[in-house]
Every structure is written in structure tokens, then in C-alpha cells.
């Protein structure tokens, strides 16, 4: 996925002089995950560069550039370090368009590796999509494959809205997939049905997709047929795809990494009951983290969703 993202950035940098890429250590070093590796060499230090260590500064200046007609793509080094930029995101990046009644656009992408499972220090494993999904004016997306990462990032850069692009760092290098060369886009806001099934719908995104897929294999052995929806877009949510699926299966589970309360799971469940109440054969369920800080590596397995836990929930809802 790292290569696919790098490729997307490279393509847009080539194609559009208004695109610049910056953030902490993204220049010479190519980012701590090497996502931007080589881009400075190709496109120059005016277009791909290290910023001072200040997230509010990074996002705030990107807003200014975007207003001036550029298309900045900035990196937050880890999910846990986006919060100093929170005010700029919620008070400006997501609002300038509305505030100025469309006069000022903020076409910018905030890239951010998110999620656990990499044996990291505190603040390096979070998945707080729900907080960002609640911010009016922001769009939040997350790919689950290299192919999607490339196409979605290109779409994001081309979008005139402010987009938070959450990268599942756990599978940065885990999924081997041929990615089409050259430019292609994937429409934002559309979910992807990854597998058809009839007993239960599982909604998930990002790094959890792979875990769900493993659980689906277990479920199959247990005779349960699962439909898997890769959300791709956290906000807006593709209600239609969810509604269609849950009307068919009558059961829905959302699998996420973030804390339970006020999380993505509740939102998906709400959508399911709003769209398909009379089709429901069991209460929409959420498999999520607990309402705790993601534990340090030695305790992380207590927190994360693994295939077995997902299967456990699948079995539970089917037996309901």
C-alpha cells in the first residue's frame, strides 16, 4: 500500500503543479513509513518538503495554500498526533467553504496512518474515525487495499473538499496486490461489497477488512454466509449499499478498532434500523475496541479485534 500511495502522490505531483506534499520528515527522509520516499528527489524541495514540527501549523498553512488555489497534501505522522491540528480542522478546513458561501474552497488532503497492531508506543495505534466523521464539512475516507489506496487518494487530491485520508498502517506492507499503472480514480463515498452472503452483513473498513475476511473463512466452515462491505468512506456513509445488504441478510455487525461508545458501530446500526427495521432479525451489533486507551504492545491483544472474536460475534448474531 505504501507504494500505491507513493504512486498516487507522484502522479498528481506530475500532473498538477498546484499539488504540494509536506509534513514532518516527509522530504529527505520520505516519511517515517517511507510513504513519500523519493518524491522530493523527483519533484524538488519546493513541492515535497519537511515542515516544522507543528501539526496545527501544517494543517493551518495548508488551508491558506488551498484558498490560494493550491492542492496541498499534508501528512500527520501518526493518528495520535493529529489533535494539535484539531482546531484548524474543525474550525476552518471543514468550514471555510460554508463560511464564505463557496467563495473560498479548501481542496486539501490530510493523510494519516491510523490503527493498531504494530507494537507501537502510546498514541501510535488509534482509530478515531468517529470523531472526524462527526465534523460537518469534512470528508473521511480509508482504503483497505493498495488498489483502493491509489485510486481513492487520487480522487481525494482532485476533490474540492477537505479530505481526511486514513491509512491503515498495519497493512502498509502486508497486502501484496498488483496495482494498475498510471492514473485511475475511485469515486469517493461509495462502499465496496467485497463478498456476497446471505446470513449476515459485516461492515468494516481499513485494516480490519483483512481480519473480517479471515473470520469469514471460519464462518463458512460453520455454515454461515457473510456479506462483507468495505465502507471505504466513513463520511459520508454509503447508506444505500448498507441498506440493500441488510435487507437481504437481516443481520448486521460493524467491526472497528476504535472505542465502542459514540463509535462508527452505533452510526451503522442506526442506519440499519432507519433503513431496514422491519427486515432485522437480530439487533445490529458492533464489534469494537473497548472504551479504553489502546494498550501498549503487551496488552494490545486484549483490545484488538481478531478473526476469532469477529467470528464469535458472527456466530452470536446468527444464533440470536
Amino acid at each position, binding site marked *: 500500500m505504501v507504494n500505491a500511495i507513493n504512486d498516487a502522490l507522484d502522479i498528481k505531483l506530475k500532473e498538477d503543479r498546484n499539488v*504540494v506534499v509536506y509534513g514532518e520528515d516527509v522530504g529527505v527522509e520520505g516519511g517515517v513509513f517511507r510513504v513519500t520516499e523519493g518524491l522530493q528527489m523527483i519533484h524538488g524541495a*519546493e513541492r515535497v518538503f519537511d*515542515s*516544522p514540527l*507543528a501539526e*496545527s*501549523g501544517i*494543517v*493551518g*498553512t*495548508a*488551508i*491558506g*495554500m*488551498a*484558498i*490560494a*488555489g*493550491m492542492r*496541498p497534501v499534508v501528512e500527520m505522522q501518526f493518528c495520535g498526533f493529529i489533535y*494539535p491540528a484539531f*482546531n*484548524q480542522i474543525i*474550525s*476552518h478546513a471543514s468550514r*471555510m*467553504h*460554508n*463560511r*464564505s*458561501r*463557496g*467563495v*473560498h*474552497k479548501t*481542496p486539501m488532503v490530510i493523510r494519516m496512518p491510523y490503527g493498531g497492531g504494530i507494537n507501537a508506543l502510546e498514541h501510535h495505534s488509534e482509530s478515531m474515525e468517529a470523531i472526524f466523521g462527526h465534523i*460537518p*464539512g469534512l*470528508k473521511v475516507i480509508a482504503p483497505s487495499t493498495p488498489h483502493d489506496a491509489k485510486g481513492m487518494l487520487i480522487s481525494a487530491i482532485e*476533490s*474540492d*473538499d477537505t479530505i481526511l485520508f486514513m491509512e491503515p498502517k498495519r497493512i502498509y506492507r502486508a497486502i501484496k496486490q498488483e496495482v494498475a499503472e498510471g492514473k485511475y480514480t475511485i469515486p469517493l*463515498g461509495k462502499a465496496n461489497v467485497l463478498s456476497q452472503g446471505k446470513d449476515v452483513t459485516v461492515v468494516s473498513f481499513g485494516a480490519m477488512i483483512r481480519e473480517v475476511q479471515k473470520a469469514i473463512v471460519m464462518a463458512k466452515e460453520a455454515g454461515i454466509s457473510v456479506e462483507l462491505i468495505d465502507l471505504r468512506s466513513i*463520511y*459520508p*456513509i454509503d*447508506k*444505500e449499499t448498507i441498506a440493500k445488504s441488510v435487507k437481504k441478510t437481516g443481520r448486521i455487525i460493524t467491526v472497528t478498532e476504535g472505542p465502542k461508545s459514540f463509535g462508527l458501530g452505533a452510526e451503522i446500526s442506526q442506519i440499519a434500523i432507519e433503513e431496514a427495521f422491519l427486515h432485522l432479525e437480530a439487533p445490529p451489533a458492533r464489534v469494537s475496541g473497548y472504551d479504553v486507551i489502546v494498550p501498549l504492545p503487551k496488552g494490545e491483544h486484549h483490545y484488538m479485534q481478531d478473526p476469532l472474536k469477529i467470528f464469535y460475534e458472527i456466530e452470536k448474531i446468527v444464533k440470536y
Partner: protein
Amino acid sequence: MFKEYNPINNKEFQILDHKGKVVAKEMMPPIKDDELLKAYKEMLFARTADLQIVSYQRQGRIYTYPPNYGQEAISGAVGALIKDSDWLVPAFREMGAMLAKGVTLKELFLYFMGYEDGSKFSKAKKTLPISVPIASQLLHAAGLGYAIKYNKEKDLVYAFVGDGGTSEGDFHEAVNFAGVWKVPVIFIIQNNQYGISTPTRMQTASDNLAVKAIAYGVKGIKVDGNDYFAMYKAIQESIKVCEAGEGPVLIEAVTYRKGAHTTSDDPTKYRTKEEEEQWDLKDPLKRLKSYLIAKKIWSDKEEEKVIEQYKVEVDRQFLEAENYGPYPKEDIFKYMYAEMPDDLKDQEREYERFMEWKAARAK
């Protein structure tokens, strides 16, 4: 000039003293009489409007408003020097500068009457809307500066913040980014002595605010912000710095908020009459007026006359704003995104259904 007035020495740059006397002739910028008069009148217009808005507010015809009263020379000088192609990044107390960019009073009225449309400047180009979250706008200025430099343009960014705003982290990050990037931004701190009720000495222990420039390796200068000439000159010199690619500059404009913080504020709670009187002596308009009258290019009579005209004009635009009409429901939805999500469209339809039900019920 920046050497001579290195803020580390806490020296305040002044040309016209409190009595309207020129005390630094060698520094006097060569402004033609007609230009000077034009600038003076613009400040007078701003002041007239400002005072009138406060009275509209008392009549309940406008919501909370932050008066500019006493700070007009700062916006005035910026207004005289800013180009159409320069960016203006206001905080919320820069009426004069906004008018100079082409924002109309009517638009400002609309804004303070509670219409977002007031921020959709129809004539003013390259002007950001008022920014409420203190100091946050300074980062946009740094970003705009980057874009100018990146595109090899010759324009500038004028960005405003208050004394209170210098305490925010975003102030620090903005001037620091601009300093590292060497972008053409003139950061202007309107030090009007208070952040609402909090005096500047409770914001920071530094000797002055201009001295903060040193922390970012940029040029800084403390200016008598009630002295139109000093402000004019300081900005002119800052423009040179920016144009030479040595950008940014941090200007502390020392002034006084003669009015309340906003129309909901009561300054008698936190400051004395004596203090207000002291500062009244330093009023920027009175001072410049003395100068103009001494130069015999202005008179009390002329002033009275134009003020009457201005009042009519202010009122005219106010009435236009007041008759702006209802706020269409679609306006709360349609500007949220460049590309509106389906779900938001559904929400709008949901609201329409409710309105239909409501209408039917009312019958």
C-alpha cells in the same frame, strides 16, 4: 529602521506625536495631500459607521458587534497600502482594511445581522472572512504567503491578530512557519491593551509584543498604532522586506480599544475612567485632524459635513442589509461541501417534509 527600532530596546516608532506634531520628520513618508485626505476620510467613515453600528445594536437591530473605535489608524494605513492582488486576513476588528479591499458596509452589516452571506464578498477579492477563533487565521496567512512565493508572485499578505491572540499556540506556529519559509506576510498585532477584560501584561511577561519576532528570526517593530504616519511608514518598510524575499515582518501596533470589547461587554468592570481619558488624548483621528488642520487642508466644518454624508450612507447600507430578506433553508446545506454528499441531500429533504407538515398543520 528595523535596526534602529529593534524591539529588544522597547522603543516605539512614532512620527506624529499625540498633539499632532511631527517628531520624526526624516521618517515622514511622502504622502500626497489628496491621498492623505482620502485616507483620513476613510478612517472617518469607518469611525462614523462604527459608532452608528453600536447604536443600531442598542436598538436591537444587529447582534453582537466588536467596535473598532480608536484603532482606525491601523486599518487605515493598511487600507492605503494594500493592493487588490494582496491578501487580507482579518481577525474581527479591521473594518477599515476590509472596506479598503472592497468589502461593503452592507456585507459587514449582513454578517453581524446573522447572515453568512455577509462573508460572500461580492467585490473584495483576496479577502478572507472574519475569523473568530483567535489567532487561528495567522496560519492561513502563512500558507497564502507560501502560495505567493511558490507562484513567484509579488503580492503580500496582511494578517491581523490582537494582543490576546499572541498567547495562542497558533500565533507561534504561524510566525515561525512564515519565518522558516521566508514568505511575504506582514503580521500586525493590534495591541489595544486588552483581550476582553484581560490586560496585556497578563498575557505575557515580555517587554513588548514586537520582541516576539526575535523568537522566529524575523524582523519586528513596535509602532504607535494611533499614529497614521508611523503605521504607514512601518508598513512601507515591511513591504520592502517582504519584496526583497526576506519576509515576514511582525508589527506591534500600540493602540487602545476606546469602545467595549463587543456590544455585550462593559469595560467599566475592568478599566478606569482615567485610563480611558489618558488614551483619549492619543486618539488617532484627532491627532491626524490637528495635523491636517494645521496644514490647512481640512477644517471642522468640512468634517461635520462629511460626517453627515457618511451617516446617511451608513444608514442607507444598513437599511439595505436590514431588508435583505429571509434566509433560505437550502443555504444551510448547500455550501457545506463543494460536492454535496447524498446523505446531506436526504437531510434537506427530511427538513422539507417537516416544513410541509408544519404548513399543513398551520392551516
